């Protein structure tokens, strides 16, 4: 059993999804229980993986016992363990929230939700480039269906753009894979990295082109500046538990960038371009998203722009490329994903009690539970704006310390300004929702226990990440150190001899 641990985070949701698909389209109490239980089991599995990865070695799982680089391998290191754990925790919160009734607005919610988890976990665990593409497609297909769960004009309109953009992204992804395979003759990430290090000048120009093409694809998923315009409309239109789960979707792009940057292209000439692009793109995203947060007239759009602020911050950290900045990046990543999820859920809770006005920032009727929702909103706002004493402040502090020399000159003012913009916008939203709304009698539906526990589960991360800041940041630091030694992966996979390229590989 223990040796199959690595593939279980993919198998468990897949089997659950199959069972759920067979048991009917409308969510029954049993379906809900099964879906929540599967997510809870996934959290336990993720904890086991975290412990396993903490030994510092790479464990791998050769599918069908075909050894790397010929077969597909799943590779577990600290980074994948963190991402799988983050997905599981977020998914548990979202699915609990959805079980309160959001899941019955369309068909097959829970099954598609589990398929989405299959794609996410697979993308985080795989050690093969083409397999990464396949898992990207699985998670994207599931996300198309989830995004349009419940239907409606706004969702279909936003979904159309999202689907077309991602299909073009997939086409570019295959193009990049074709170029890289043509130049290196392998698809295994670790093997590709080793081969790129010893290519001649002609082939490495080809590899640089492929690498930059890949970064464009991942930037589209991660939503960096010229490629983020799809995000606010899509996230604002998605149903609340799905928007919350989508908080991790941008992080898949970030994960893929981190992975190829450290493992595949660590020795290639493209690395300088990639880091430069991430750094300046991140800063520009940060700046524009800050303005977007201020300009948003709807709470959901505002949270979508806050997601973009976090994407910008994370991309800057990825662009710096030092061990300290990767440490900060991972710490901030955990915090920001869970809080963004909580904010989307909270926006929904506030919206349904305000009747017609929804989450728009206008005066409306009084909330039925102003103290409860207001209190949670305040915690989430403090955390996401990066004020002490919650985790957002710590993450930003770590990041600002990691910046060196002239990087500080750019990062510090822009990061702090974006934080200030978030603070202003959230205070304005909070005062409109909880103080300035007094038209008519409150009569919206009460928040159900399931919804509340979903939000609290995600919100609890903000204080917990501060209390456990020591262990968490030492784990992320160990991850960053591990990422800086990519040659250990090929050693763990047993890739000692470089096989000569066969004749067919030469273009």
């Amino acid at each position, binding site marked *: 059993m223990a040796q199959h641990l690595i593939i279980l985070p993919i198998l468990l949701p897949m089997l659950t999804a199959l069972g759920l698909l067979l048991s009917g389209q409308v969510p029954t109490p049993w379906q809900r229980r099964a879906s929540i239980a599967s997510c809870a089991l996934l959290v336990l599995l993720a904890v086991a993986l975290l412990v396993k990865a903490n030994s510092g070695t790479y464990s791998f799982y050769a599918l069908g016992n075909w050894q790397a680089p010929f077969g597909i391998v799943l590779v577990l290191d600290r980074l994948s363990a963190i991402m799988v754990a983050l997905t599981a925790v977020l998914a548990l919160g979202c699915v609990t929230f959805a079980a309160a009734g959001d899941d019955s607005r369309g068909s097959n919610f829970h099954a598609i939700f589990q398929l989405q988890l299959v794609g996410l976990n697979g993308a985080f665990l795989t050690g093969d480039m083409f397999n990464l593409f*396949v898992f990207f497609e699985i998670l994207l297909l599931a996300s198309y269906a989830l995004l*349009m769960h419940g239907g409606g*004009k706004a969702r279909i309109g936003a979904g*159309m753009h999202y689907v077309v953009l991602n*299909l073009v992204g997939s*086409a570019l992804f295959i193009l990049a894979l*074709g170029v890289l395979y043509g130049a290196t003759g392998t698809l295994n990430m670790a093997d590709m990295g080793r081969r790129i290090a010893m290519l001649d000048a002609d082939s490495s120009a080809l590899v640089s082109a492929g690498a930059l093409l890949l970064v464009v694809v991942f930037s589209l998923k991660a939503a960096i500046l010229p490629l983020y315009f799809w995000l606010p409309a899509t996230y604002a239109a998605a149903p609340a538990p799905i928007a919350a789960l989508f908080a991790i979707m941008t992080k898949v792009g970030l994960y893929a960038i981190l992975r190829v940057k450290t493992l595949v292209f660590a020795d290639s000439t493209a690395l300088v371009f990639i880091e430069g692009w991430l750094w300046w793109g991140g800063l520009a995203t940060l700046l524009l998203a800050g303005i977007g947060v201020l300009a948003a007239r709807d709470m959901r759009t505002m949270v979508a722009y806050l997601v973009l602020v976090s994407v910008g911050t994370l991309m800057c950290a990825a662009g710096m490329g030092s061990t300290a900045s990767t440490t900060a990046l991972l710490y901030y990543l955990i915090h920001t994903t869970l809080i963004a999820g909580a904010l989307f859920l909270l926006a929904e809770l506030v919206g349904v009690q305000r009747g017609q006005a929804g989450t728009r920032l206008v005066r409306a009727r009084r909330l039925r539970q102003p103290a409860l929702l207001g209190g949670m909103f305040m915690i989430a706002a403090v955390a996401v704006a990066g004020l002490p004493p919650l985790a957002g402040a710590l993450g930003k502090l770590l990041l600002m310390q990691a910046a060196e020399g002239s990087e500080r000159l750019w990062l510090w003012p822009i990061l702090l300004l974006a934080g200030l913009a978030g603070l202003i916008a959230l205070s304005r939203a909070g005062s409109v929702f909880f103080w300035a709304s007094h038209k008519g009698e409150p009569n919206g539906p009460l928040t159900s226990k399931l919804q509340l526990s979903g939000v609290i589960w995600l919100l609890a991360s903000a204080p917990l990440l501060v209390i456990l800041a020591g262990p968490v940041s030492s784990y992320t630091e160990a991850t960053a150190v591990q990422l800086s030694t990519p040659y250990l992966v090929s050693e763990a996979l047993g890739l000692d001899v470089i096989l000569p390229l066969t004749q*067919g*590989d030469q273009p």
Partner: protein
Amino acid sequence: MELLFSLVTGVLSASGIYLLLRGRTFSIIVGLALLSYAVNLFLFSMGGLHTHAAAVIGESESPADPLPQALVLTAIVIGFAMTAFMVILAIRARAELGNDHVDGKQGEEGETR
């Protein structure tokens, strides 16, 4: 053969991108299909172009690389699923939004209905 192959790939992707930038869902679907043909052809060529080279050892003197063929097969299957989904989505969008424009709005200035 190389010239012909690259010409075909280039023309296919150029037409695909042109159609992709149109405003109606139908041309976008056709554009996506053309683009994915171009990408599949490109992927097919990544193991090198050979004639009379079966991807089986022993059948010919220098067997072709079988991996690109397997990958193209995967890409084609995924492409089929995506096209089918896109068509259904476009029909749904036409029904919900009342027209087949990607932004869901009919008509710029000077455009007739």
